[in-house]
């Protein structure tokens, strides 16, 4: 069984009236089934409001499913009395870099998670040193997070999660507020963790360029998983993606346009090299 598994998962946001009675429900996630293997790099794509963030928050027991079941490392998030066990296994990085850093000095922030878990002091220091190194932030350890760039702040947030020694990291649109350089920085840090430390990565995003290296891509729309497959399988369906308010990397789009214009070229080209290979054989 995978490290994160969902069965017929559903989630409703409830709207209460003034007396505290449920006035309306809004379905944010509907009938989602997932099975994510340890060590995978999984991307979840979807436009704003497609339910992808709601799904992510259930992987960390920040939200408990209204329907169906979510297992993290074989623990049922709805039944586990010690929620922080789940939260330690599935660490989470959020969108806004300013709103998730608690410490006023980088290293203190990285130590926040282990402190909460009751890790002994010596061990906290080891973990902080180690996580800062893995995210390339050692040089900034004594700085105030306010002085860092967006990409660096997100790397601090990632280091803070790594220090909890999770088996998987869920990143909820970690690059949405960053500039292209910051985005690259964060993605490199994440794929490094995935490759070298074998940490399972679940990346929620709407930037198509970021999912090319994923093992598996899920596309969400209206709370449902509407497409799943390898990046190549997903990106070969340009028109379907457009229907879901998404696009494809420009190289894929160009190949698609050429294909439409009658050029003998396969769909789902993901990189510049592939395109050159297809056209200059």
């Amino acid at each position: 069984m995978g490290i994160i598994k969902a069965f017929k998962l559903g989630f409703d946001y409830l709207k209460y009236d003034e007396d505290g009675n449920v006035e309306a429900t809004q379905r944010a996630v509907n009938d989602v089934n997932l099975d994510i293997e340890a060590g995978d790099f999984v991307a979840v794509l979807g436009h704003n409001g497609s339910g992808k963030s709601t799904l992510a928050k259930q992987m960390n027991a920040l939200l408990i499913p209204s329907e169906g079941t979510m297992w993290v490392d074989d623990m049922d998030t709805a039944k586990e009395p010690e929620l922080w066990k789940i939260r330690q296994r599935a660490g989470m990085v959020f969108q806004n870099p300013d709103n998730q850093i608690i410490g006023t000095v980088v290293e203190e922030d990285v130590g926040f998670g282990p402190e909460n878990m009751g890790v002994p002091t010596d061990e906290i220091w080891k973990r902080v040193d180690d996580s800062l190194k893995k995210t390339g932030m050692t040089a900034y350890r004594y700085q105030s997070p306010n002085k860092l760039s967006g990409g660096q702040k997100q790397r601090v947030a990632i280091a803070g999660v790594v220090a909890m020694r999770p088996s998987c990291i869920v990143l909820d649109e970690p690059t949405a507020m960053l500039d292209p350089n910051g985005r690259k920085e964060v993605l490199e840090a994440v794929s490094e963790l995935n490759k070298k430390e074998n940490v399972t990565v679940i990346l929620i995003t709407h930037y198509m360029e970021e999912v090319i290296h994923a093992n598996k891509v899920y596309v969400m729309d209206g709370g449902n998983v509407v497409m799943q497959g390898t990046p190549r399988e997903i990106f070969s369906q340009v028109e379907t993606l457009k229907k879901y308010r998404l696009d494809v990397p420009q190289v894929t789009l160009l190949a698609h346009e050429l294909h439409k214009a009658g050029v003998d070229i396969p769909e789902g080209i993901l990189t510049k090299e592939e395109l050159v290979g297809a056209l200059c054989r």
Partner: protein
Amino acid sequence: MIRDITIGQYYPADSLIHKLDPRTKLVGTIGFIVSVFLFHTFVGYAVATIFLAGMILLSKVPVKFIFKGLKTIFMLLLITIFFNMILTPGEVVWKLGFIKVTNEGLVLAGTMAIRLVYLVIGSSIMTLTTTPNQLTDGLECLLRPLNKLHVPVHDIAMMMSIALRFIPILLEETDKIMKAQIARGADFENGNLIQKAKNMVPLLVPLFISAFRRANDLAMAMEARCYHGGDNRTQMKPLTYKMRDHVAYVVMIAYLAVAIGFRAAGI
């Protein structure tokens, strides 16, 4: 203007004062404030000044940076001086209509001004050399006995630490919101008091909404990192007194003894 507020800002440097235990600095700051109120003569203030100057030098924080913090209390300072000057009865030295400035008033105004300024500088040195986290750790530790009275010391300390971290962020945000509204023709400077208050609405509404959103996000981020209050929590930087702290306490006690001695001797 907004950038000038230094209270609650940490100035990173490698100095003896920075390395002191936050408890030492907290107790020391309280001791210093007490001394400022104990001294009441020129000689006494000279001693306080020398002590303060020594601390500033030891802290390696640029003097300019420390004085910047005074800008924010400038108005308060003026008001204090003004009212002390005109409301203290005594020997009249200058008179305009019903406003009388007395000799005693001038002395009192001067004393109050010195006390206020030293109080701010003294506490700025503490906040500039102590990260808010250390500060709250220190407070939490010193106030721990109150736990027995069911005061949620840990929670209060955590709230303080978060407030301190978000002050610069919210100030910057205020700046941005002001600019966005000025670009839409908002006027934050002209008009009478009521108009001015009304003109603040376009600034305050976005600021509050943003603050609440941040609070919400942060609470979620803290939960996601296993925060569940102070129970079973360990510390990355547990507080331990070192040799330098013992020395600092001795210096502090000696200084306070001088202050008390001066007071008793009427100097």
